[in-house]
């Protein structure tokens, strides 16, 4: 009979045999006087023996038995499955994120040989990678040997005009060798040549678009190559479409054009505004390249002291520049996940041990009746495997959701550059983990449980520890508590730091404020004052809208990227030596900006409309940091200063001082800033700031309509509330805090379950002893104390070890903490208290049960 035929339901086979025998019996009855038929039951049993199908049926039967057992003790099964599922889900989520962000190969040829080439300034060592001056880039390119290719890119926002549709997109201007260096070919069309990457009309007309733009904006038009559009009102021809998913460091870029640097031009005084990336030659190491580049930078310092003094070179592997400041939090998370998993597994081990100890009697009876030891072990392991399979399935689901939540919580800057999806290898590893946990933790208690001397199991009186599980479980609990303490301390530290961080006054009032960007096409607004008049009109129209209290504009919104810096010079002070110039950030604003955005005015006055004319006298407003650094102890109002913006820089009068805005990150002190009125520094791109009466987000559609009426070729871009913008700033800390907090809570929950389990077991094991004591007249609470006392020893032990461990390891969190020491006393006092409280709560029910035991029942050994 084929094996699959054998798997037919047992009942069918039994029925067939019954039919066969019945037939035989009937036939015999019809014939001569029948002798006794024979023991039908014996025949049946002989057949049944024949019907052992071996492996599969045994396993199926074991599984059924296991499931019945779980239905009878749902608390055990539920706790075990939940514990394991939590651990596995956490592992999947974190490892997937880490894998995608830290380990995934980049989609370029030989990505490990690609390095970002930054400049750095010896005077601001805390800022590692700064933009590059094209002059330096050209010199590096000419002089270096370490790189086989070096490319430049510049990123900005532009307005794409096609027919009557206008929208803002991000564009990267790149050198001609950029795409070949990355090893990328376009999906359609061709890349631009080095000849087209030079100044002159030819290259300026070329445009490469992303796959996403082709499919979306151009609706997959097969004739898109050669199509004519406008970028910032200038005509362009599309020459290529990039493959799907192609990007370089910024997933939101949809357009590429030639950067058209002129090798003959002296860019020295244009400032530092491009990024450079290079491919290392195969026979050079990054260390060697860094030495060579530093030497070149040094030579340039000597040759151009006025411009290059204190400027050096910093090489950074491409991947690091992408992952950068998320490395530490992720590594912390990996460790935290490991801890959580350890807690989960020890909890499961605990539960399994308890269960097998409780079934000691059953196992002993079965062995006494002749069950093979192997058979018993096999059954116990099967039970653990069933648990593991359930936990694995739930864990995968949990992991999926956790990953989705992680992505949504994570700082936009990280996920912007990543495409996170679950790797099936990780799922497979998790399943293996599940199974391994099941087997290991099923094996140990199984070995203990089935090895026993049968006699103690068959006796009804047992003492705690004699079944071999008790002490092990107590140690496991101690370990769980220690690990939970470490997690809790970490989470609390981060939480306190986060509270301090968000409590810091940003320097402006983000509530009820709306911002959006307007980029005018430069071609149409070059005439003097034309862009100023446009923005004045835009602000006027907005202020007339119902629900708007005030509106203004700024060239670079705080907390939304850097504003450019330049040197400033104060009247009456000697010219500083090269390398010791005074640096200030420059912003351009419209009148009443500070009032609109909520930056307080400290001295003097704000810009007003009469300042906002190109023939008005040049005036400046500075912030407190500027005054502290450059004009201490004098009244800054009325002083004259100049900023190096152009070949000729007139002096202007300082008319006011405003409060600091904590830029960059809330942790650093403010940067000295000087503000221009728009008429004297006519940016064509400004960010409008609108203060509203009510919910700012709801006003966005109305804003779009108003701007559409004003000029339909100028789209409203990046419309969001100021609170959203601010939120991104401490997204990283919020992310780490939330995650670690979640883990700690999970660990705490698991520890509570574990403590409850151990104590409940202790009570049930010593039931008879408790009964005796109660019967002899002991005070119930003394009895409870006795029972719990033993368990308490281990809780305290775990606490102690955990605190020591936390003290030792919390220093690794220091880089993530703001204004909170890694040995913060409140945390280290609070956590043990919390844990003791949890332990008490978990111990409450078993304790109550112990004190309520009916002595008679206890003595009789009933449970």
């Amino acid at each position, binding site marked *: *009979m084929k094996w699959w035929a054998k798997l037919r339901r047992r009942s069918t086979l039994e029925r067939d045999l019954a039919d066969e025998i019945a037939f035989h019996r009937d036939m015999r009855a019809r014939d001569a006087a029948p002798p006794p038929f024979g023991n039908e039951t014996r025949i049946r049993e002989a057949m049944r023996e024949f019907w052992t199908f071996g492996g599969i049926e045994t396993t199926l039967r074991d599984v059924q038995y296991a499931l019945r057992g779980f239905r009878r003790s749902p608390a055990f099964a539920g706790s075990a499955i939940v514990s394991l599922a939590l651990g596995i889900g956490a592992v999947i989520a974190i490892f997937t994120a880490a894998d995608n962000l830290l380990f995934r190969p980049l989609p370029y040829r030989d990505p490990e040989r690609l390095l970002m080439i930054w400049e750095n300034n010896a005077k601001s060592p805390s800022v590692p990678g700064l933009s590059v001056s094209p002059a330096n880039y050209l010199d590096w390119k000419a002089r270096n040997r370490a790189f086989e290719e070096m490319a430049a890119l510049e990123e900005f926002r532009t307005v794409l005009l096609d027919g009557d549709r206008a929208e803002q997109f991000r564009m990267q201007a790149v050198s001609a060798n950029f795409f070949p260096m990355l090893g990328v070919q376009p999906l359609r069309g061709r890349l631009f040549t080095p000849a087209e990457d030079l100044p002159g009309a030819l290259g300026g007309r070329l445009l490469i678009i992303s796959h996403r733009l082709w499919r979306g904006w151009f609706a997959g038009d097969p004739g898109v190559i050669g199509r004519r559009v406008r970028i910032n009102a200038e005509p362009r021809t599309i020459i290529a479409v990039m493959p799907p998913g192609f990007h370089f460091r910024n997933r939101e870029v949809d357009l590429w054009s030639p950067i058209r640097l002129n090798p003959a031009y002296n860019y020295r005084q244009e400032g530092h505004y491009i990024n450079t990336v290079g491919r290392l030659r195969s026979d050079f190491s990054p260390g060697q390249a860094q030495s060579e580049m530093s030497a070149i930078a040094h030579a340039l310092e000597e040759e151009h002291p006025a411009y290059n003094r204190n400027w050096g070179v910093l090489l950074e592997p491409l991947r690091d520049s992408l992952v950068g400041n998320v490395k530490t939090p992720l590594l912390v998370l990996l460790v935290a996940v490991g801890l959580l998993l350890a807690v989960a597994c020890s909890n499961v081990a605990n539960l399994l041990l308890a269960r097998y100890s409780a079934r000691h009697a059953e196992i002993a009876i079965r062995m006494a009746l002749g069950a093979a030891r192997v058979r018993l072990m096999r059954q116990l392991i099967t039970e653990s495997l069933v648990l593991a399979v359930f936990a694995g399935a739930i864990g995968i689901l949990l992991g999926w959701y956790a990953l989705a939540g992680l992505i949504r919580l994570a700082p936009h800057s990280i996920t912007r550059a990543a495409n996170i999806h679950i790797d099936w290898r990780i799922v497979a590893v998790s399943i293996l983990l599940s199974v391994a946990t099941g087997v290991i933790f099923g094996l140990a208690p199984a070995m203990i449980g089935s090895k026993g001397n049968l006699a103690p199991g068959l006796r009804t009186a047992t003492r705690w520890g004699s079944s071999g599980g008790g002490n092990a479980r107590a140690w496991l609990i101690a370990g769980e508590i220690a690990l939970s303490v470490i997690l809790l301390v970490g989470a609390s530290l981060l939480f306190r730091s986060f509270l301090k961080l968000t409590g810091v006054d940003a320097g402006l009032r983000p509530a009820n404020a709306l911002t959006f960007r307007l980029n005018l096409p430069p071609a149409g607004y070059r005439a003097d004052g034309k862009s100023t008049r446009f923005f004045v009109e835009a602000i006027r129209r907005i202020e007339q809208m119902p629900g708007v209290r005030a509106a203004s504009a700024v060239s670079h919104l705080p907390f939304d990227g850097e504003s450019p810096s330049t040197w400033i010079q104060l009247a009456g002070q000697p010219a500083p030596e090269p390398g010791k110039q005074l640096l200030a950030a420059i912003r351009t604003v419209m009148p009443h900006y500070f009032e609109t955005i909520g930056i307080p005015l400290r001295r003097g006055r704000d810009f007003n409309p009469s300042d906002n004319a190109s023939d008005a006298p040049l005036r400046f407003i500075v912030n407190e940091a500027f005054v502290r650094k450059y004009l201490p102890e004098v009244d800054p109002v009325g002083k004259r200063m100049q900023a190096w913006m152009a070949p000729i820089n007139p002096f202007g009068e300082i008319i006011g001082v405003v409060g600091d805005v904590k830029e960059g990150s809330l942790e650093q002190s403010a940067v000295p800033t000087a503000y221009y009125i728009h008429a004297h520094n006519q940016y064509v791109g400004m960010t409008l700031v609108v203060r509203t009466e009510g919910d700012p987000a709801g006003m966005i559609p109305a804003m779009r309509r108003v701007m559409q009426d004003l000029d339909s070729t100028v789209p409203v871009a990046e419309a969001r509330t100021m609170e959203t913008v601010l939120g991104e700033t401490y997204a990283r800390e919020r992310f780490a805090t939330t995650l670690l907090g979640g883990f700690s809570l999970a660990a705490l929950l698991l520890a509570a379950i574990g403590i409850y389990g151990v104590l409940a077991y202790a009570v049930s094991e010593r039931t008879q002893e408790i009964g005796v004591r109660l019967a002899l007249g002991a005070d119930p609470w003394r009895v409870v104390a006795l029972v719990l006392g033993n368990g308490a020893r281990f809780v305290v032990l775990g606490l102690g070890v955990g605190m020591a461990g936390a003290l030792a390891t919390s220093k690794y969190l220091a880089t993530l903490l703001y204004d909170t020491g890694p040995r913060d006393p409140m945390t280290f006092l609070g956590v043990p208290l919390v844990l003791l409280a949890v332990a008490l709560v978990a111990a409450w029910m078993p304790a109550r049960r112990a004190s309520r035991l009916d002595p008679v029942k206890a003595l009789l050994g009933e449970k």
Partner: protein
Amino acid sequence: MAKKDLIQGTLDMLILKTLTAGTMHGYAIAVAIENRSADELRVEEGALYPALHRLEAAELLTSEWKISEKNRRAKFYRLTPAGRKHLSSESSNWNRLVAAVARVMEPV
């Protein structure tokens, strides 16, 4: 009637031999063996059915549920080619065994 215990393998051989006459159900096989042996050999049901199923598992027989001559459902067994081969090798073994025993039992 004396009941003789049969060695298991011998019973298998008898069943196979009986089935060379054609397809039959379990009862018919038992009756056939009784008749051929002139009632010397009586097959117990407790031995017959396990033997039949064992032979079927070894693929020396195949079985089929059919309607019997009395209009009832019964399981009919049939020899397979492998079964025939097994029968011929078993019967030659048996003959050799019998001859050997006879030689030993000859009067000295």
